[in-house]
């Protein structure tokens, strides 16, 4: 990768995160290209490099952004509401990551992975309000990226 690619990748990464953090939705490749004044092919290539470096996860076929961790670009069972906006985490860990990234109070609406019973959590003033429950990590840490979508 040369310096031009480094700069381009930074601009694309920052634009993706700006999009998800301010608007709650990840920008599409065409939107990124228009916003940055770049050819679509250059943005798509930057996204591929960022995905190869595990800075983002792309959708398998469309190659649009799937995950800008902790945010999911598509709806998931981990809904996070902050300041009137709706975000989605990729898992419960990432749902907790959203208030960490935003520095905002949030409510997380999800459900028990086993029985589907609704569970609601709140982070207020940088503190998690007490809740009964257990977070389960099914995959050992050294295999987290083997299948990041399942994980």
């Amino acid at each position: 990768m040369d310096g031009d690619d480094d700069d381009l990748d930074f601009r694309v990464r920052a634009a993706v995160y700006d999009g998800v953090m301010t608007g709650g939705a990840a920008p599409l490749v065409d939107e990124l290209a228009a916003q940055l004044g770049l050819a679509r092919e250059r943005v798509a290539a930057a996204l591929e490099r960022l995905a190869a470096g595990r800075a983002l996860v792309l959708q398998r076929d469309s190659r649009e952004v799937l995950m800008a961790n902790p945010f999911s670009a598509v709806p998931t069972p981990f809904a996070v509401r902050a300041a009137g906006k709706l975000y989605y985490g990729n898992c419960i860990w990432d749902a907790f990551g959203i208030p960490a990234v935003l520095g905002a109070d949030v409510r997380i609406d999800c459900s028990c992975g086993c029985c589907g019973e609704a569970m609601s959590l709140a982070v207020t003033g940088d503190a998690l309000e007490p809740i009964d429950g257990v977070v389960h990590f099914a995959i050992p840490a050294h295999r987290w990226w083997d299948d990041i979508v399942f994980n």
Partner: protein
Amino acid sequence: MLLFRSEEHVERWCRAWSLPRGATLSPESAWQLARVWYSADRRARAWRRRTVDETEALLAGLGLTGPFWALR
């Protein structure tokens, strides 16, 4: 990573999916992990992924050690 109502529900889910039980954290511990993990601003030019050494140190700093949390 999923949230469950109790350890019993974790065990039931593992049986249903024929998966070995992994590791569990309290919601508070998972929140603390997320706070540290996502502390860096990913919009910053200087942001980069942590190295394996840095990640292992981060996990160890939260008491997450042993084979399940090892990265190599």
